């Protein structure tokens, strides 16, 4: 079992506010790791520190043994880290397929080659395969801005996977999604994980979603890691219950 991600003593403060205080954990290849915690526990800040959106005040992040602390998000992405967003961030003016091609194009060939090469950077096939996997064929040409919320969520996830990443961080993927779509989403994520052995880290509020999807759970409260383990163990951990009820 190889360690894909190693987070050590990550801390982040904004002015006087300590959002994250010394969090450390490791993620093994193929795991689906869930991170839960009450509002304000520092989950998003932790995510953003790992992803290079924020520079941690202290601590390191290692990807496959390589120090990637505070690298720019685009660099991290090219090293094999993808992410989805809590607030939907597709490109509304482009078609669904175009969105996917965009998501993969920086990983194909050289930058100069892309100027003179094919319009789609040779990605139409891959995009269509992804569209098929998420069962969105009938919407391939539709402008992404016109899709329903749930469909945009699926597109968001699909985009994160276009470049065949090693590690994908999903920021509240279940937020605002109706029950049926939620089932599809969970099922597709599990299928992806089984097929590609991609490692997932998921922040979620939806307990049922996270407990049924993830193989291991971390619990954050007030910027600290207070519990970790398989879903059943975490669910019954008194410290975790206290953290949620105490708020």
């Amino acid at each position, binding site marked *: 079992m190889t360690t894909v991600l190693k987070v050590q003593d990550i801390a982040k403060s904004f002015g006087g506010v300590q959002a994250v205080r010394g969090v450390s954990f490791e993620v093994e290849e193929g795991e689906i790791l869930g991170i839960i915690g009450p509002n304000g526990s520092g989950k998003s800040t932790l995510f953003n520190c790992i*992803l290079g*959106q924020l520079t941690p005040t202290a601590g390191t992040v290692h990807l496959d043994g390589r120090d990637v602390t505070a690298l*720019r*998000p*685009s660099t991290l*992405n*090219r090293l094999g880290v*993808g*992410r989805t*967003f*809590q*607030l*939907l*961030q*597709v*490109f*509304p*003016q*482009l078609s669904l397929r*175009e969105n996917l*091609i*965009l*998501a993969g*194009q*920086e*990983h194909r060939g050289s*930058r100069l080659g*892309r*100027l*003179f*090469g094919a*319009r*789609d*950077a040779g990605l139409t096939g891959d995009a269509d395969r992804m569209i098929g996997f998420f069962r969105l064929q009938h919407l391939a040409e539709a402008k992404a*801005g*016109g899709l329903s*919320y749930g469909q945009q969520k699926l597109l968001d996830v699909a*985009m*994160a996977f*276009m*470049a065949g990443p090693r590690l994908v961080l999903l920021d*509240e993927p279940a*937020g*605002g999604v109706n029950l049926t779509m939620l089932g599809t989403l969970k099922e597709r994520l599990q299928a992806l994980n089984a097929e590609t052995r991609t490692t997932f880290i998921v922040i979620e509020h939806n307990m049922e979603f996270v407990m049924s999807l993830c193989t291991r759970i971390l619990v954050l409260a007030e910027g600290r890691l207070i519990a970790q383990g398989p879903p059943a163990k975490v669910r019954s951990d008194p410290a975790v219950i206290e953290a949620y009820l105490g708020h």
Partner: protein
Amino acid sequence: MTRLHWTVILLALLGAVLILVPLDLTGYGIPWSGLKRYGTYILTLWLVTAIAAMGVNLILGYAGQETLAQAAFLGIGAYLTALTTKAGLPFGLAFLASGVVTFLVGILLGFPALRVQKHYLAFVTLAFGVLVWLIFRNEQWLTGGVMGISDIRRPSLFGVPLRHFINFYWFVLGVTAALAFVFWWIIRSPWGRAFTALRENPVRAESLGIDIRLYTLLAFAIGCAYGGFAGALYAPLVEFIDPNPFALAQNFLFLLMVVIGGAGSFAGPFIGAAVAVLLPEWLRFAEGYYLLIYATLVMVLMAFAPGGIAGLFERLFSARRGASAEKPPAPGLAPASQEVAP
């Protein structure tokens, strides 16, 4: 007839019209006596302005940055071409050099400015524009100062002299068409997709591996190069250059004309350039008021039609075709990312 067919037909028609319009066609039974020298000059000026506007369009409409130095880059191209052709350099090389030099200056200028906050480029280009104009005005030994450089010869193409105003017009038309094609190619390539991404949603683009700093820099530098190319054509067009056309106010006007035409659309710069070149002519009677009208027009457009004139046409056509209930997004300036409550 698909949209592609219509576009090709329209372009062919437009090409034919543009080629024939300065000529006297009465001998062929067509009631059109052609444009005189001044009319053809205006048309040529429109093309040159449109090239510079295409550059601004790339920077503003596709990469989402404000540039306030396009007139300065035009000036650099113009002075460079004037000086080198007078020293004996063939026009073709001067033209290329203008583009290359302005591209490199764009890279140098953009690199530090884009490392920091988004709107810094506006101020850096503003400062640069003023600095460059000061150099044009003060360095008499190089640029002739306020007296400028006169007697700029028009080039010859494969031995055919382009001195005559119609020949020169056709030459500029050809160059404009070529540059427009290059622009179209860039926009349609994966680079163009990256530019759209960084305008619509730079955070998302970064997370997909798109190096937004580099792409913004490239868009900026290419846009500046178009300014240089326009300048290289401007010098032989007017045959005399002085610092006036490259003053601070002109930089603002280039930005505004692209907005009026429609930033982020292909036809936008051409429409905007037409407005910019023709409005002072039509409003001759209004003398100094044309700038006032111009400014009011822009403010009104921004409030009701940020897609500019091209955007208005776009909306007209989609309304005719029976648009979906979804309001069609305006090209260029309107923000596209949608905020959804968590």
